[in-house]
Each structure stands twice: as structure tokens, then as C-alpha cells.
């Protein structure tokens, strides 16, 4: 099982990615997807656009390492991680994580695990463009807590 990792400006189609995964194995019973989307509003601030910067090279390595951890922890048939970079408008898709397994519980846990680690470990940075100027987004402590809970289980 070789995870598919993709980082770039191109958008994605969740339906196409689900079909790609289903074509890989006929032992799949459930596919879980997470799609992260740009909100028009962040903590009450209207956001017109967003720029997403990354660390080319390290990004792909970090995502592959997170996918590898997930595949060691759960019995998975497929993993896809697509993270876009560049300029976004509200409603645009930013990130897609697909996990497929024989049993749905494993797919759900693995998908949430990958998102929690991606949020706290992968070198991406968001800058919001608002009527009041441009602001780097602060990291959320709730994301750290989300990632931390996997340590104790």
C-alpha cells in the first residue's frame, strides 16, 4: 500500500479521488474523506482571500511520514493526501485526506489522525488577506490538543 501524496496549486475532485482508491483494492468496505475548506470568516474577521505558503520538499516528506504512521497504526487499504498551496478564495478546497479500510472504524480514526498531525506537523502557513490588511494566521492550541490525544492511546 503506497500512499498517494500530492502538494501543488491544482484543485482536486473528491469523487475522482474516491474512484481512484476504489480501483486499487476490492477488499475496501469503507472510504472516509476529509475536505478542508477556506472559510469567509475567521474568528469574526471577514477574509477576502488567503495565501498558503509551504516548504517545498519538506512538505511532501512530512505528509509521507504522517501517512506512514497511520498505516502502521491501522489496517488500511489506501491513503491519499492532497494539499493545495497558493491563493484561495472563500469556499475553495484546501486539503483532502482519503483513508480506505475493510472496516469503517479504522478508516475514520486514521483520517482524523492524519488531519490532526497535518495541522500541527506539516510546514504550511496561511496568510489572510482582509480589508484591514494581510495577517499571518496564528496556530490554534486546539489543534495541538487534537494531535496530542493520539500519544496517550
Amino acid at each position, binding site marked *: 500500500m503506497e500512499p498517494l501524496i500530492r502538494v501543488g496549486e491544482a484543485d482536486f475532485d473528491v469523487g475522482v479521488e474516491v474512484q481512484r482508491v476504489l480501483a486499487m483494492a476490492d477488499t475496501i468496505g469503507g472510504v472516509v474523506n476529509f475536505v*478542508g475548506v477556506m472559510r469567509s470568516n475567521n474568528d469574526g474577521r471577514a477574509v477576502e482571500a488567503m495565501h*498558503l*505558503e*509551504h*516548504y517545498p*520538499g*519538506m512538505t511532501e*516528506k*512530512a505528509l509521507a511520514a504522517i501517512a506512514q504512521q497511520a498505516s502502521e497504526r491501522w489496517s488500511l487499504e489506501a491513503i491519499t493526501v492532497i*494539499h493545495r498551496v497558493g491563493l484561495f478564495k472563500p469556499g475553495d478546497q*484546501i*486539503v483532502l485526506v482519503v483513508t480506505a479500510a475493510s472496516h469503517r472504524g479504522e478508516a475514520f480514526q486514521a483520517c482524523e489522525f492524519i*488531519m490532526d498531525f*497535518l*495541522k*500541527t*506537523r*506539516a*510546514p*504550511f*502557513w*496561511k*496568510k489572510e488577506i482582509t480589508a484591514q490588511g494581510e495577517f*499571518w*494566521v*496564528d*496556530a*490554534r492550541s486546539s*489543534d495541538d490538543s487534537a494531535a496530542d490525544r493520539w500519544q496517550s492511546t
Partner: protein
Amino acid sequence: MIKVLFFAKLRESLGCGSLEWPVQEPLSLKDLRDQIIARHPEWEPDLCAQNVIAAVNQAVAAPHEVVQPGDEVAFYPPVTGG
């Protein structure tokens, strides 16, 4: 030479995205940072901020980790992807 990269808010604060640092001998990540600060004293507050993360050859690294000529080092603020 060691290639040193800065990202996001840190890059903007320093006004520098990357630099080539002359190094002949292995040294710790912390010593490398101190050398850079000796050359750019005005970078100290940003580069020594509690939440700055360092990576060596694209893997997160602790201050005592040893770097050597040819390595790629990066400093960056907490990540906000996803």
C-alpha cells in the same frame, strides 16, 4: 556551506528568505543560530522566539542536533496548514 531557509512570518520579519552560511566544521544547530545572530544582531528577538521551529535536512530537529557542510537548515513559525 550550509543553506539556511526562513519561512512565512519569520521570513517577512527578518526580511530574508534564505542565505548561504560558510561552515567548515560540524556544529550544533544552536551554535549555528548564534553565529547567524552575531552577524545579524537585529534578528535575535525573532530567531530566538520560543515558538520558532528548526529543521535539518527537512526534518524537525532539536537545538543540540549537529549540522555540517552541505546540510539544509530551516527556521519557521508554528505551522497553520490543513
